[in-house]
């Protein structure tokens, strides 16, 4: 029962700190593009508080799926985050919730909510964005599944707490080549899921990933925006718990260390994002998705062969 309290703590603390990383990332990107950008790292906090004050508009045709959309998105994002055993990594009973398959299918719930709200809003660009989101999911899902499959088969269980414990104690780790190669392809999948430059462009075009939120305004928009950030953090968190789990036993220290690591990754992603070229989404996926798929298949073959 205490693991649920730890999960809530985990979620709330990341919800509060995540906008800071977002501010840092925007500041860094501005600097890299040699422009001034926001005065300090807290610009995202100011944006969100301003949004909360604003009144909202809604398309006349939308029904309750659109109205409850933001809350569903936030719930899915937060639930994704809760599956990552940062604070409650000691008791393995929490494995009932912290499970790889639960993580993947909560990701599916998030994509379902995304698609349904985008088409329901009636906004043509949101519809195209929703479609793009699903295509993205279809490309990323197999790669993520193959790499996770290798990890699960090596660990012999899908319980994240167990996997984290095994990797920490070194029973399975980078000394097995399948595991190492799987981590590379999983890293690519994580980068795609965070929705950065070559695969998705948040701010500018409407029809891309962020465009789905085109119809939201005011407090709804802020919750939906927070949900997206939570999803990115959760994905990075999953990478960290499996492939880089070394952390403290004490829940609070573990949380702080985890948040720092996520911050580093989140901001580091800006470097790739900033200098990468801007492809059309489908072409970028088509010719850049094949190599990671091959890498993950190599990892699987290595495992099947028994290495």
């Amino acid at each position: 029962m205490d693991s649920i309290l730890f999960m809530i703590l985990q979620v709330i603390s990341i919800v509060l700190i995540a906008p800071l990383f977002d501010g840092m990332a925007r500041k860094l990107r501005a600097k890299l593009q040699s422009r001034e950008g926001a005065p300090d790292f807290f610009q995202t906090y100011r944006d969100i508080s301003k949004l909360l004050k604003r009144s909202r508009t809604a398309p006349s045709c939308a029904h309750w799926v659109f109205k409850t959309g933001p809350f569903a998105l936030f719930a899915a994002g937060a639930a994704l985050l809760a599956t990552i055993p940062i604070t409650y990594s000691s008791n393995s009973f929490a494995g009932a919730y912290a499970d790889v398959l639960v993580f993947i299918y909560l990701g599916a719930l998030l994509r379902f909510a995304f698609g349904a709200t985008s088409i329901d809003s009636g906004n043509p660009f949101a519809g195209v964005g929703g479609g793009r989101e699903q295509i993205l999911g279809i490309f990323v899902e197999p790669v993520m599944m193959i790499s996770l499959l290798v990890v699960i088969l090596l660990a012999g269980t899908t319980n994240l707490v167990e996997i984290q414990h095994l990797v920490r104690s070194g029973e399975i780790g980078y000394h097995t080549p399948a595991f190492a190669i799987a981590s590379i392809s999983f890293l690519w999948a994580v980068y795609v899921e965070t929705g950065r430059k070559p695969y998705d462009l948040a701010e500018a075009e409407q029809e891309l990933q962020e465009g789905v939120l085109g119809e939201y305004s005011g407090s709804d928009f802020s919750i939906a925006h927070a949900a997206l950030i939570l999803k990115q953090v959760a994905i990075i968190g999953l990478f960290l718990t499996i492939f880089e789990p070394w952390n403290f036993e004490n829940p609070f220290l573990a949380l702080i260390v985890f948040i720092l690591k996520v911050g580093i990754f989140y901001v580091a992603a800006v470097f790739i994002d900033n200098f990468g070229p801007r492809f059309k989404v489908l072409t970028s996926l088509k010719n850049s998705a094949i190599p990671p798929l091959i890498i993950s298949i190599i990892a699987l073959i290595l495992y099947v062969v028994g290495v």
Partner: protein
Amino acid sequence: MTQVYFLYVIGCIISLLLYKQNKIAAKVGFSISAIASAYAVFYFLVNLEQTVSINMFESLLYSPKLVLNPLGNFFSFVVSLVSLASSIYAIQYSGEYEKKGSLAVMAGLFNAFILSMLLLIASSDVFWFIIFWECMTVISAYLICFNDSKSSLKAIMIYLGIAHLGAMCITAAFLIMSAQTGSLEFSSYENIQLSPVMASIVFLLAFIGFGSKAGMFPMHVWLPKAHPAAPTNVSALMSGVMIKVALFGIIKFCLWLPVMEWWGLLIIIVGALSALLGVLYALVQHDYKALLAYHSVENIGIILLGLGTGVYGIAANMPTLAAIGFLAGLYHILNHATFKGLLFLGAGSVLYTTHTKEMDNLGGLARKMPLTAFAFLIGSLAITAIPPLNGFVSEWVTYQGMFQGALSEYASSRVVFCIAIVALALTGALAVMCFVKAYSVIFGGTPRDKKIFENAREVPVTMVIGMFVLVAGCIAFGLGANIVVKDIMLVVSSFSGNYEAVNGTVINSPMGSTVSPLLIAAVLVITVLIPVVILKLAKANRTKPRQTDPWACGFKYDSRMQMTASPFTGDLRRLLNWLYRSETKVKDQGYFAPVVYETHAKDIWWNLLYEPVIKLTVNTAKVVSKMQNGNVNMYSLYILIALCLFVGISYLL
């Protein structure tokens, strides 16, 4: 048990007697079947693990006995659950067929259809199994006839042809086994000694026979044609339950025969293929009933993955793998029956009010039909295996079974299990895309056709009750997963291995990983409350939102601008055009008229596997029919030729 069958017989007879008054006949017939199914659901649930055996009348051929073991009880429970929902649904739905045909016959055939399925599960000798099997096929074929149209006749013919091919394969398989044991009783098959070659032949025959009825990959061609043509309550029953009865046959065969490893792997490969191809074809459908029919093919694939793992477990005598394999298969059979029945009933309600199957001119129906929209949403969430609902738990168990299979030491089985796992993952992602499209294009957004939107209204109350019975089923089997798993383990342990599957509310797999849907639901509820609390604390401006037109970059918004069904999956269709070979028709009617653009993906399997065979037989028929050319001399020459032939043959003998 006899009361259940007896109730259905009464229902059938009474509705036929009221042949003259159509309306009352439908109401009485369907309500009797609803009562009978309710009683059946209760009866089969209560004594799930008893084995009951009664003999039918003595004077019948081969004096048949009806035997229900726990496996039979489980399947009868699934049959009666979905028939309960669809008979309640049909009480008022059948009003739509008043002009088309006599409702009394429809109600009578409906009762007979359910009765034939229940008796099929309970039958215990070859002759009567085949009789009930063909009764089920013929009755369901003629229930489809109520939707009288040119295309439905062709669909029925394809369905009957493939079903009869399957029935012949099953008869041959049964008779090879009874030639071995000497008697037609199923009990004599328990300890059958067959050489591996004969056992494989019998297994392949049974697999093709039952697979053709279940809509497996190579023989799935009839399913997307027959189900959309049937009236809704019949198609809900057919795709929810009739397909499962076919899988019941496969399980029985795998329990009798001396099982071999490669059988399990074959079932898994065919299952993976059916799953992938089913969902790929479902993505590009315009007609939402065909979409649901293709999804039945996909879910049959997933069930076969579970059953294949179970069969592999028995063959490699790993009892825990067998137990989790069959647990996964049976649990997904139960879940698929509920959410597929729900989706078909939902689709039927949409058809009932809008009278069009084309997804592209529906839209915004949620405001006019909120209850149906909610039911369809729950169905879509369940079928795409979204965590708190029942689809997720059964797919989780299937995954666990396959993970354990993938740990086995033979490289070949490891490869097959890994491919199956990846296929299941990809199917999951594709299913999400498909049902996002299906749900939101029909119910969300602005209405695309004014006239349809005007006269769309909520469906009558019994149809809503019928749907909500299954909605409750989906939620109950999802959240109450531990009770369901306990019961299914009772059934599974009755015929194969056993392992400690449930403690408290947590379901654990033999590999040690656990999941508890209740915990997931609790976390989701809490995480929904967090934003509400944040908004309260930050005293956000929650005034009523201002109603505007959706933003169209400054242009005047028009309902034709929004996303419709085919562009949503357009990228995927272009990517996989080598599979779909869709022909696109672009009609440009002058400058001012809108351009008509249509793309229809073709199911290439029909003209890849079936068309050449049909063409061959028809050509030989044309050649042979030249023999009867009406000339007497030729006919007398035939007699002479026959004489010489037989003399020649007798020299050889």
